[in-house]
């Protein structure tokens, strides 16, 4: 009897987790990774669970997190955004060249850059909805155009300097917590409410899982999808600005690898390619897992070859087990 009661408790917990749209396997994976890290620390003495390492991981996690949240929305809408690399790099260059070392300009330029990112996202969304271009092609095409425009505008040479205030945002802390993490938590809470509680979240889910039903139930399908791309562009551009603060360097290719990493984080977190499901919590955990793996690999001095294999396997597993879309 007691055993049965215990089992029931487990079932309820599983049910709750399911309702949160996060697969219990994901928590298990995170737990397994932490146990592995603990074992590694005990055996080899690497300093994984140190404050400074945790803060470093957390800061990196925030930057991936911004992009992965945007990617989650797009994937939930049934799409995919490959233009994030171009958007992040453009945000990075805009920040350094427009702010040019002037602290007073940090927030206006941040705002402007986010608007530029949102505009690029809108173009993606319009191509996907109004012209029916497959998301993969539309966002790839847009990213080539954006990269080209940036290189023409800069002549390939990033100008300007990253101001102290932005560097402080990218590397500094407040009450022991990195600024980046604080900003990310606020953004993540906003998106949690958006997805889990707002009518937009509901419309996005319906649109992604079944566009016909969405149209029949009076949802403006195109508007929902365009909004998802718009948000993804805005978040990417913002991440580009913070990335400039993190490295202190204006780099024309700052966004490299954020496309595959953000897709992997979202999919690991339960966003299904093809649309419908996905959640903020899932994506957050997906991002953490991805960064923990990278961090552990570096701490363990794994050479690049094995790092690539590990990361590749994780992405394949994620897509194979969690990312299966509609049948």
């Amino acid at each position, binding site marked *: 009897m007691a055993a049965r009661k215990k089992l029931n408790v487990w079932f309820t917990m599983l049910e709750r987790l399911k309702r949160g749209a996060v697969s219990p396997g994901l928590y298990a994976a995170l737990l397994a990774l932490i146990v592995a890290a603990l074992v590694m620390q005990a055996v080899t003495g*690497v300093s994984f669970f140190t404050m400074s390492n945790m803060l*470093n991981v957390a800061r990196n996690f925030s930057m991936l997190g911004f992009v992965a949240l945007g990617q989650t929305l797009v994937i939930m809408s049934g799409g995919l955004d490959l233009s994030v690399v171009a958007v992040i790099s453009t945000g990075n260059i805009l920040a350094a060249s427009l702010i040019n070392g002037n602290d007073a300009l940090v927030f206006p330029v941040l705002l402007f850059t986010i608007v530029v990112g949102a505009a690029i996202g809108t173009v993606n969304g319009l191509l996907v909805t109004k012209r029916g271009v497959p998301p993969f092609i539309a966002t790839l095409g847009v990213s080539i155009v954006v990269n080209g425009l940036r290189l023409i505008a800069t*002549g390939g040479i990033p100008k300007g300097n990253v101001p102290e205030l932005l560097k402080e945002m990218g590397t500094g802390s407040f009450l022991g917590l990195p600024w980046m993490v604080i900003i990310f938590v606020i953004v993540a809470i906003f998106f949690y409410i958006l997805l889990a509680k707002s009518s937009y979240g509901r419309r996005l889910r319906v649109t992604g899982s079944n566009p016909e039903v969405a149209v029949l139930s009076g949802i403006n399908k195109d508007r929902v999808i365009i909004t998802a791309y718009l948000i993804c562009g805005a978040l990417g551009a913002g991440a580009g600005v913070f990335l400039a603060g993190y*490295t202190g360097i204006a780099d024309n290719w*700052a966004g490299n*690898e954020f496309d595959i990493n953000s897709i992997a984080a979202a999919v690991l977190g339960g966003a299904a390619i093809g649309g419908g499901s996905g959640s903020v919590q899932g994506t957050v955990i997906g991002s953490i897992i991805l960064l923990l793996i990278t*961090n552990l690999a570096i*701490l363990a001095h794994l050479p690049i070859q094995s790092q690539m294999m590990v990361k590749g396997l994780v992405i394949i597993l994620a897509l194979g087990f969690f990312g299966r879309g509609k049948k």
Partner: protein
Amino acid sequence: MKKGLSLILITLLMLSLGAAVFAGGQQDAAGKDEFVIGWSNAGMGDSWRQFLKANFEAEVAANPEIVKYYISDANERPEKQIADIDDLLAKGVDGLIIYPTVGDAIIPAVERAYESGIPVIVFGGSINTDSLTCLVTQDLYEFGRSQAKWLAEELGGKGKIIMLSGIAGNTTAEERLAGAREVFDANPGIEVLDHQYCDWSAAKTKTIVEAMLNAFPEIDGIWADSGLMSWPALQAFEEAGRKLVPSTGDQLNGYAKYVSEKNVPAYLYPMSTRLSAEAVKVLVAAMKGETVDKKVAASFEGMGPEAIKKFVKPELSDWWWVGDDQMPAEFLPRL
């Protein structure tokens, strides 16, 4: 009698013709003192390429026998570069310089140019054909070796270092790494704590070095194959509250500015944009009929702390190339 006279006349005629042809041939080979040259460039996508062009134009101006030059830009597309080369040949250039987009993709055009009889100089990349006058490259083993030698000496032959490379499998990164490893292997006092590829990305480098700083309580030096990696690496040291250590990189001005401002020893080995000037020099020699080697591997001077102080441009862009700007001001890129 008549027949005999005709024979003499014909013989004379043929002799004079032969002499004329012979003399003319001579004049063609060595007598020309005005040249038109062409440069089929791969692309102009970054500041390094702009310096490459500036050094080309400065060198052309220093050679008065070059009366005219054409530069074409392939926008990194091999098929455009093939058309560009044919176009330059049609313009009748006396010599051709090629900076390959993808070496092996443009071989047919390179061979066509070479078979047309003009000197063809390829520089800045590799190409699998012998149908060219000279391949001018920078010795990248020497690049890594020179950096490693300086670092080993700076540390007095003893210390723990980390190594940061560009992209795994990329020839440039691998050759620099092999050169450096050669030196560190010969210095048993130097312990390589870890080597990682950071993809010539500042953000990735910083993340990786932050983890390394956690893993190793003592790091005495940084060997990095470029300034875009040693610069964020040093920033990670600074933010972790660790003492800044000697480092190596290339001639990126942002890195030079950082190390001179922090007054920390560093060594800049240039991935020199003066290579284009070297190519012009070889081409001029070949056009004048001098024999040139089939391969020229140029090496350049590295810059230690003193030279960095001399050449750094604190007021200019982070993406200026230190030491590559030794040319008349009118040729300098406007960054």
